[in-house]
């Protein structure tokens, strides 16, 4: 029994040392320029180039919403992200709306949508259709359905794998993370 316990401890230590090593060796997420700009919207055709938006390490809290113009529940909750952007504009909060619209729809659908709605939060387009290769890199908790929202800062991360029920739910998630 004692031997087993010691073995367990050794395993845990190994696990711990591997982990910390992996952490120190972990590649940072360098800021990569977008593949293109479309009317002020950075367009990323590769997830790896986009990934730094999910890993800024500073004193700002990022609210990253994955959406598309074709996704009805996504469009329904956009006003809450606009409201959040207004409400927290002086509080080191940055709202980022990541559009997953297809490449062929960016000019036809996304750009007119963003312009006609005068969307204030930052809009970014991610057109990497190799979903299988990157969905888990956002978080393994994500099945791929949209909308989803990741809120993070240098200390904490939280993930909502569905549409918010109302503005208050979104605001609460942000406030809980900022504490």
């Amino acid at each position: 029994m004692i031997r087993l316990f010691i073995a367990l401890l050794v395993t845990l230590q190994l696990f711990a040392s591997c982990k910390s090593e992996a952490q120190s060796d972990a590649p940072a997420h360098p800021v990569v320029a977008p593949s293109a700009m479309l009317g002020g919207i950075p367009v990323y055709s590769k997830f790896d180039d986009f990934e730094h938006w999910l890993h800024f390490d500073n004193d700002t809290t990022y609210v990253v919403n994955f959406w598309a113009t074709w996704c009805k529940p996504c469009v329904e909750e956009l006003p809450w992200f606009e409201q959040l952007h207004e409400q927290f504009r002086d509080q080191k909060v940055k709202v980022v709306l990541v559009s997953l619209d297809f490449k062929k729809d960016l000019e036809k659908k996304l750009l007119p949508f963003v312009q006609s709605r005068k969307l204030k939060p930052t809009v970014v387009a991610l057109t990497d259709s190799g979903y299988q290769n990157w969905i888990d890199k956002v978080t393994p908790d994500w099945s791929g359905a949209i909308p989803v929202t990741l809120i993070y800062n240098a200390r904490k991360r939280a993930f909502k794998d569905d549409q918010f029920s109302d503005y208050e739910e979104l605001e609460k998630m942000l406030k809980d993370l900022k504490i």
Partner: protein
Amino acid sequence: MKRIFGFSLALAALAAVFIAATAPATDGLKIGDKAPDFKLKGVDGKTYSLAGIKDANGKAPKGYIVTFTCNTCPFAVLYEDRIIALNKKTSIMGYPVVAIQPNDPALKPGDDFAAMQQRAKEKNFTFPYLFDDGQKVFPQYGASRTPEFYVLDKDMVLRYTGAMDDNAEDPAAVKVNYIEMAIKYMENNQAPNPATTKAIGCSIKVKKS
């Protein structure tokens, strides 16, 4: 020693928290689980269950391709013709497609039974298109989006789940058809690899309680 012990315990606790925090939701079927059968009404008015499904040769299937899909999701629409083509190809091989519409029509009127019937007629669906009335079936499978695919073997054991292929936007640019690949593995008595994939899709619309 005591210090190391304490340190290890703390690490163990930390590891437990870490694992709990990163473990994905475990609801629904996992690879190797037996999929539940169901009794659902098809667009032809008949009631279907997996046990009664036959392949294109009129024989008991070697497996089943169960897909949760709908009329309204643009991603599901992108796969409509591909599902029709897939069934044409795989049903002859012994793997018929069974499509289930899981959305609540109260929230998505374009997915109601009449709209399903019309869509199936327009597109000449050659596979059952069933309505998950009451939304009891899709949670048992753990489906979360449309379109989503489950490949079962003849014993209704889940062997593959996820996307149909690796390019939703452009069928011509598809490099891998995960379902056909899974069937190839199964035909060789091997476990499909990959056994699970992920893709973007529309969240299944559930009535809020």
